[in-house]
């Protein structure tokens, strides 16, 4: 597929509708309940789109909050309303799965700044009747977690049995444990870090520049101009997607193989399978994601640095935390490498926290947390079962 065809991809109508009237559960907070943002402004009114799976028990003690990654959303375990594809964590979540919907009440909310129904730059600004665009305040991971806490208050869930997430989701898990330690019994950050590295900020900046260099971006006002920076967002996604994989995984999947041809064309067509694959990743992404939302969420990750809130001493963030942790990393993840997870573990040990840490051998890179990794499933299952015993949860037997 050529870049011209990317421009001719699906109309964003479905996606725009999804931002305000999502195919999800929605809670709307009025002007009396603003979301206090780190940027120093109150966001009100605003809404949170979320999905739940399973049932909350009578003691309200079996709630598990899932935090989604940069390009994820609340559709964990159901057909996605825009792409019509299965949810993003069906391997992990569901009846009999490690995060068992027959035992736990599973909640997943679209993050603040997202574009799947929680208020973000693609949502309608009530003051103008137009999408917020760049008028939307810059948000942080702390803001995301604060919004989720408001959702839980609304649902009547005081404490979470567990908070689980990978990548940006893992950052939210860590922030949950720091912001609301008394509300989190068990925390499971996967392929995460307590701060975004300079290299990762650099990759994000390249992605943002790709979006902003697209003339169709129109200074973020593409919705008003009837355009959509598809090419820019697709390139941003292509670049980012490489960082989610590993050299070994790319080589295993594609090698230097040609795409539907036996010889090079001596042109700039997608001769190689890996090129074709990346273009496909770019095209399918722009169908479901808002370009401005991508700018905001990558920015939130860049700003993430837990130690900075504690005079640079990470251990103080977790001092005497009541939460039990299970930190997981993957050997081939170079975006959030094992050393990042080890830093979390060191801080937790110094803070006397109860922590488990496992590194899983895989060549699938950062994305491994979304994929079929039996060892990951066994560890998540074992950790949650151990936590159940410690909490005295009496749930249905597996």
């Amino acid at each position, binding site marked *: 597929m050529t870049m011209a065809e990317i421009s001719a991809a699906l109309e964003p109508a479905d996606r725009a509708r999804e931002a305000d009237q999502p195919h999800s559960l929605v809670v709307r907070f009025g002007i009396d309940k603003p979301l206090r943002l780190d940027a120093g402004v109150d966001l009100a009114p605003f809404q949170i789109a979320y999905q739940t799976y399973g049932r909350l028990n009578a003691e309200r003690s079996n709630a598990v909050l899932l935090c989604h990654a940069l390009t994820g959303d609340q559709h964990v375990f159901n057909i996605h309303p825009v792409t019509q594809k299965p949810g993003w964590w069906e391997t992990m979540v569901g009846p009999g799965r490690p995060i068992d919907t027959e035992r736990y009440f599973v909640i997943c909310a679209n993050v603040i700044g997202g574009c799947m129904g929680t208020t973000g730059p693609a949502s309608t600004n009530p003051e103008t009747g137009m999408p917020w665009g760049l008028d939307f305040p810059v948000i942080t991971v702390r803001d995301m977690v604060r919004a989720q806490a408001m959702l839980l208050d609304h649902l009547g869930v005081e404490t979470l049995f567990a908070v689980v997430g990978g990548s940006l989701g893992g950052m939210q898990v860590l922030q949950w444990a720091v912001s609301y330690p008394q509300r989190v019994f068990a925390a499971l950050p996967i392929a995460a870090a307590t701060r975004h590295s300079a290299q990762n900020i650099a990759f994000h900046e390249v992605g943002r520049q790709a979006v902003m260099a697209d003339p169709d971006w129109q200074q973020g006002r593409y919705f008003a101009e009837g355009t959509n920076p598809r090419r820019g967002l697709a390139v941003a996604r292509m670049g980012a997607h490489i960082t989610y994989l590993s050299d070994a995984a790319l080589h295993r999947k594609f090698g230097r193989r040609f795409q539907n041809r036996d010889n090079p064309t001596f042109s700039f067509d997608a001769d190689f399978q890996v090129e074709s694959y990346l273009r496909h990743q770019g095209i399918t992404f722009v169908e479901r994601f808002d370009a401005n939302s991508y700018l905001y969420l990558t920015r939130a990750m860049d700003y993430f640095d837990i130690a900075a809130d504690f005079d640079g001493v990470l251990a103080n963030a977790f001092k005497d935390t009541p939460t039990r942790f299970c930190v997981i990393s993957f050997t081939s993840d170079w975006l959030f490498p094992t050393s990042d997870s080890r830093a979390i573990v060191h801080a937790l040990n110094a803070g006397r926290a*109860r922590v488990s840490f496992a590194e899983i051998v895989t060549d699938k890179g950062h994305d491994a947390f979304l994929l079929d990794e039996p060892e990951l499933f066994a*560890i998540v299952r074992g950790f949650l079962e151990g936590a159940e015993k410690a909490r005295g949860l009496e749930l249905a037997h597996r």
Partner: protein
Amino acid sequence: MLKTLKQDLTMADTARVPGGGTRVDLLLVAEMVERGARVLDVGCGDGELLRLLAEARDVDGRGIELSREGVNEGVAKGLAVIQGDADTDLADYPDDAFDYVILSQTLQATRQPRVVLEHMLRIGRHAIVSFPNFGHWKIRLQVGVGGHMPQTDNLPYSWWDTPNIHFCTIKDFRQLCDVAGASIERAVALNAWGRALRFNAPWWFWNLMGEQAVFLLSRQDGRAS
């Protein structure tokens, strides 16, 4: 007391080795730990001792293990285990973080036994160390008469592939305790059949007849209770 624990254990149905028995050194270690204590098990393997301690002694246990397989197995069992190295990672733990720090059959595999022991005494109020006694008569016989590095049921490795790089005898270990500032609260030597040697036997007898030893230690400076 050991007998009671064995009964606890049978009821807990845990810590069983493939042969069907329970490792006596683990029972001994477990017996030295107070009920409900906070314990760090350094070199915890697949978490057998931690599970025994949790089920039979109601212990709040953590583990460090070098092998990734051991760690992942332990975590999957619901234990709090991290992948780490006794030689490098103990420095990260704050003083007095635990009631007991246990080094079970691992001392001889560390690069710096003295540093490891000193960290254990700093992190925990007590340290428990169990190790194979290189002064046992069978080993002396193999080296002295056979003229080759010893291989026993407990130490099955050839010299070229053994992870054990710092063997010591019971006598040597007592010397390390002196150097590292550890006072010996209790010591038990086990014979080849896993039975404890008479507690009033002289040290030379333990050093000759004990196949393994278990030491309960605390800091000499009196900071330990």
